[in-house]
């Protein structure tokens, strides 16, 4: 990182942002806080709580699918669990935990005392609590939770086919989560543009801050579109409008356009901050600066821009015009160019470095390996004939899990292991961290690699059982899920034990070289109130 050199002397921003406030203790410290570090920490806790629930849903699904013809779940309950698994993993785990880590790390990395709007930051976090709770609560209502998948296509979500309150609560929950994202987005963009320490020019910012800036810009452009679509869906159900109902002159395909105009960029919302984390972790454990910093920044912005031009590739099977198919197919393949720039830059970063295979580094390398597989199957799916053939099969499930599990989750784990000592001030057990990595890496491939085969053989997704010829691949996938479950349990225990009785972490537990040390490693672990005694000046 070029933002490494720090001269600690009083700068023009040295005044405290919360003058005269008395530090609170106990539960009130958390409930009433507007401190970005506490809010970031709460984001991470809440996201992991939802992750545990969504992960448990996944385990129940894999149990149901372990053999053909099992009756662990009733078919309609399977649909609800499957829908909530996707929704929670996307909207209540991956997006919030990225926001949580960014909340903690970004202000320190740019040399700020807090976010630009600390109270708004608290609002963003607290909106997530009712959002997730509403959706979870719907499981226990008459009719159960939403069962139309995380994509919730009409007419399946119309009152006629989903009569219970599940879909209504799903919509309301997403509305609140979307509002949380938007408010957070405003805060991040203003913070990064306005609160950088003296001398911290845009092209001196650590790569993670750049990816957060691009991600939050995507959120600000895309999320309001989803909010609009959700409002239309809600009024269709509640007040008899017909935006997505063919009988009323509406068009169900319009939902797909609006949904994917948000949800394809949402893939980058979930992956770009992970790429930023990887771009910091690889240099830290290679002893070299990031290769091609400016190219990486441009590639990040390029992915963000092209990400808005490819939504139609989710809709090849809807019968959209062949000219649109050609355009979306081409644009989807073009996105491999900036992604390829990133991957080559990461490889060049570790090339010839003195590598230290600590847990964050293992997860970062695992990210690269798995994300490449997800990226390559993404190129296949950009090809219309192939996409139409495997549409709605397990091939798509395999692809999206290689991107979001192999990509986002591996990066999140890398980031958590990397910054946990900074956040908690405690060291974790490195041995169990590595065990967690290997169980995750092996379990992940066991679970999702066979899904490619299932999909090519024609096994449809989102169905609670299957024909006997798919049994062998499902046996393997369910065994892999069990391995993942063991790995995640070890992770949880390791983290909790480190919080309880871990050794104290020094300011820089990873011994960064001068060229890779970013500002958060120059302050104590955890950082002091308002981060810096005096605002650093970057040379």
């Amino acid at each position, binding site marked *: 990182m070029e933002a490494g050199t720090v001269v600690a002397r009083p700068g023009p921003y040295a005044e405290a942002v919360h003058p005269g406030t008395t530090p609170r203790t106990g539960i009130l410290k958390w409930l009433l806080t507007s401190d970005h570090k506490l809010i970031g920490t709460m984001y991470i806790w809440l996201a992991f709580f939802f992750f545990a629930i969504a992960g448990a849903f996944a385990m129940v699904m894999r149990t149901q699918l372990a053999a053909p013809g099992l009756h662990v779940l009733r078919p309609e309950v399977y649909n609800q669990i499957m829908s909530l698994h996707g929704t929670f993993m996307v909207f209540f785990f991956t997006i919030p935990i990225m926001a949580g880590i960014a909340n903690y790390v970004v202000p320190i990395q740019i040399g700020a005392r807090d976010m630009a*709007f600390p109270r708004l930051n608290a609002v963003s976090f607290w909106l997530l609590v009712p959002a997730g709770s509403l959706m979870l609560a719907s499981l226990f209502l008459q009719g159960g939770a939403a069962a139309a998948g995380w994509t919730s296509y009409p007419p399946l979500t119309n009152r006629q086919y989903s009569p219970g309150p599940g879909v209504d609560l799903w919509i309301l929950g997403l509305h609140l989560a979307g509002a949380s994202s938007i408010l957070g987005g405003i805060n991040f963009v203003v913070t990064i543009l306005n609160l950088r320490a003296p001398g911290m020019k845009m092209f001196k910012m650590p790569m993670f801050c750049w990816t957060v800036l691009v991600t939050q810009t995507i959120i600000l452009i895309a999320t309001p579109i989803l909010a609009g679509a959700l409002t239309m869906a809600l009024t269709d159900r509640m007040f008899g409008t017909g935006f997505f109902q063919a009988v009323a002159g509406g*068009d169900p395909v319009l939902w797909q356009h609006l949904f994917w105009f948000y949800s394809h960029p949402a893939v980058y919302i979930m992956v770009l901050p992970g790429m930023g984390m990887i771009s910091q972790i690889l240099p830290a454990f290679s002893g070299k600066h990031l290769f091609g910093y400016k190219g990486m920044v441009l590639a990040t912005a390029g992915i963000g821009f092209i990400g808005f031009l490819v939504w139609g590739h989710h809709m090849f099977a809807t019968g959209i015009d062949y*000219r649109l198919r050609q355009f979306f197919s081409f644009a989807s393949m073009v996105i491999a160019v900036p992604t390829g720039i990133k991957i080559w830059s990461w490889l060049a970063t570790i090339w010839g470095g003195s590598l230290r295979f600590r847990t964050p580094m293992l997860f970062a390398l695992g990210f690269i390996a798995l994300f490449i597989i997800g990226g390559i199957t993404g190129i296949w799916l950009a090809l219309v004939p192939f996409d139409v053939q495997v549409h709605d099969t397990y091939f798509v499930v395999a692809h999206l899990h290689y991107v979001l599990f192999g990509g986002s989750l591996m990066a999140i784990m890398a980031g958590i292991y990397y910054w946990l000592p900074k956040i908690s001030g405690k060291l974790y057990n490195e041995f169990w961290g590595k065990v967690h990595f290997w169980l995750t890496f092996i379990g992940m491939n066991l679970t999702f690699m066979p899904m490619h085969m299932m999909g090519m053989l024609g096994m449809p997704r989102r169905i609670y059982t299957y024909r006997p010829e798919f049994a062998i691949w499902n046996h393997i996938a369910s065994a892999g899920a069990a391995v993942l479950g063991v790995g995640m349990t070890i992770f949880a225990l390791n983290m909790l034990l480190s919080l309880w009785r871990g050794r104290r972490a020094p300011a820089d537990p990873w011994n960064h070289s001068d060229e890779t040390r970013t500002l958060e490693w120059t302050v104590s672990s955890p950082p002091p109130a308002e981060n810096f005694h005096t605002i650093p000046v970057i040379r």
Partner: protein
Amino acid sequence: MKRPSNTLLGAAIGVLVLLMFSFAYANVPLFKLFCERFGLGGQGKARMKGEAASAMSSTTGPIESRNITVSLMGVSASGLPIRFRPSVPSVVTNPGRSVHLSYVFTNMSDDSVHFRAIHSIVPEQAAREFQLIQCFCFEDQSLGPRESRTLPVYFALSPRIPTGIEEMTLSYTLFPRDPKKKLPVPAQEAN
């Protein structure tokens, strides 16, 4: 460069958010206009060609007076021990009218058989206007030992079927579902 105040920048971004939210609603008319202007999507195509939208669907279109005879055939390939025949050998119908008939299947062996039916429609130039609405060929079928079953077929000819076509043939070929698996032998031969 002087930075704008946090409030000003935050408010400006808030305006962008509101614009994007409005854009979602603007898409409702824009979507239709775009499709119509550039002829993208089925809705646009129908209007571009100056046809009524109802002509797209054979079941809702006007019923024409010209007669077309549809012959029904079927053959069991690859030694499958199944006999099957249509409820009628042929049917006279009109474009726009839907037809409901059935096929009777009999398993001649003492084992279960799993099979799939592949359909074929001639003449080729009219085949795309022959719309199968319900058919046993849409999914794999199974018959128990010696079981006999009647399965429905529901089809309609589109009003857009070329004039001059007076006869059509709908035929089925049955194939075993698992080609590598040994087929059961018909009971009579086993005896």
